[in-house]
């Protein structure tokens, strides 16, 4: 399809708007010092912590998000519509507010947290809290990506598999899930990228402590107080890691978005 030529102008503006700040950050890096700046122990610890927690939260998103997405896709009705609107909440909430909400739920005096605390389970200030904060903000990404894929796929294949004698669980593992694999891949990549960059909710809910809760974004936030060069270098590192994930694993799926 040939696009009208004037469409390229706003498209170019949009692209530049995203690219120019990134280029500015990269241009400001003190390149001779780059490896020293990102090689410090606190930086490496933060990077490893970020990767570990983002992976864990993505797994949680998949384990809980895929069934949720399928339930939403296969059912209609007021309860489902309500659930879908609620799922948008973490997307529109400022992450700091999300962190406060998590505190009210799982903090020491929280709705659920007070019982956990009585049982000796402490969540605040632990790496668990970081994973929870990331899962909270990333889950909607995965669910929305998957629900779209599930609705497109429809339930016809599941019906056919049932007539062939396959029990519902077998249908799930051999038919429904494989057909959703592309949607799952793109949803997981989105969730991972979001988790990697998560900051506000983590800071408010989990705190900031090297090796335990200070992920790379939190480390950057701290470094910029005293060492702006280090903050910039670490930012470039974060962008590079995200780029590796997105382009390496996801871009193909994100671009095609097809089922086959």
């Amino acid at each position, binding site marked *: 399809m040939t696009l009208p030529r004037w469409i390229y102008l706003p498209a170019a503006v949009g692209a530049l708007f995203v690219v120019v700040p990134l280029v500015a950050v990269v241009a400001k890096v003190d390149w001779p010092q780059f490896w020293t700046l990102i090689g410090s122990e606190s930086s490496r610890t933060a990077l490893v912590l970020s990767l570990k927690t983002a992976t864990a939260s993505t797994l949680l998103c998949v384990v809980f998000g895929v069934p949720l997405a399928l339930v939403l896709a296969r059912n209609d009705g007021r309860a489902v519509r309500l659930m879908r609107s609620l799922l948008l909440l973490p997307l529109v909430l400022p992450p700091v507010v999300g962190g406060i909400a998590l505190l009210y739920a799982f903090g020491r005096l929280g709705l659920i947290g007070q019982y956990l605390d009585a049982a000796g389970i402490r969540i605040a200030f632990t790496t668990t809290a970081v994973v929870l904060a990331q899962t909270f903000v990333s889950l909607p990404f995965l669910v929305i990506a998957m629900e779209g894929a599930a609705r497109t796929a429809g339930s016809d294949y599941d*019906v*056919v*598999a049932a007539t*062939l004698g*396959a029990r519902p669980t077998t249908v799930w593992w051999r038919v429904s899930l494989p057909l959703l694999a592309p949607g799952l891949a793109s949803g997981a990549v989105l969730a991972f990228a979001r988790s990697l960059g998560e900051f506000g909710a983590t800071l408010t809910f989990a705190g900031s402590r090297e090796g335990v809760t200070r992920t790379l974004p939190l480390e950057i936030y701290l470094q910029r107080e005293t060492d702006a060069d280090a903050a910039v270098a670490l930012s470039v590192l974060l962008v590079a890691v995200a780029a590796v994930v997105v382009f390496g694993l996801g871009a193909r799926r994100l671009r095609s978005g097809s089922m086959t």
Partner: protein
Amino acid sequence: MTDLHLRAVVERRGVDVEFDVAAGEVLALLGPNGAGKTTALHVIAGLLRPDRGVVRLGERVLTDTDAGVFVATHARRVGLLLQEALLFPHLSVAANVAFAPRSGHGKRPRREARAAAARWLAQVDAADLADRKPRELSGGQAQRVALARALAAEPLVLLLDEPLTGLDVNAATAMRKVLRDTLTRDGRSAVLITHDLVDVLTLADRVAILEAGRVVECGTTAAVLAAPRSHFGARFAGVNLVSGTAGPDGTLTTEWGASWHGTAAADVVAGRPAVAVFRPSAVAVYRDKPHGSPRNTVELVVAELDTSGAAIRVRSDRQPDGAPGLAADITAESVAELGLAPGERVYFSVKAQEISVHPAVTARGEAPT
């Protein structure tokens, strides 16, 4: 070999049907769109719960609303073949056919399942497609593979919902042959929804016609096509049908007072509902009211002209009771000579010996005794 009994009422779709399929028999389900044919199939397959009804397959009761019985689809041993092949896109053809032997009914170890799949593929003339992916197949090839896949589950009854409708003529012919071979060889019961006369002639033993959610006619293929008693049946078989009440000596009086004279069948009872049936080729068309003796003359308005083989089929507006208009097959020269066109007033005339009068059908679809 298993027989099938269906009785189902689905109120929100306006369906109230009942029919049987004997062991080893193929029943064709005909009817206008929306008549409830697919609904009936869905009830048999367990995809739809009727408000009231029973589905019995051989000795097993699959659905019984009174007793609260409802067996899940995957346990029914009912095969389903739809207009779209719906082959699993992420599996190869062989893996598709092996799906039931591996994961469904009749689960077997992998190697046996593969062997079974190969056998079924050979039986549908698709052995050479085994390693292809579904997206590489043509419509006809995909349907054959879908049939093999359904058969590999060894269903007790096969439900076919217009499986040939989406195929081109050549593919349809090939598929029809495969279906005929399979159904004949295995002696499997089947219910076939189709719009195609050739399908009915080559595949079906009996025919049931559904109109507005009810079975209006039911009988052997030969009987229904030769002497249809329902409007859809008549249209399908390509004959004319007028409804009314039987009078003495092969007469029929319509509810709007027109009178037809023909040859009565043995089971006609005077005073009971009856139908008068005659072929379009037996109809003569006049511009002006014909003089002389012919009875069975009626004034009509031309609705459409169509080709029918080498002749032109002149079809009139609907009859006063809403039934399809009458059809007359005449030569193209006659059409030109008479100056026929939609909207023109004409006279149809039929000889008495070309008209046969039969008893009309009851709700259950069988002729009254």
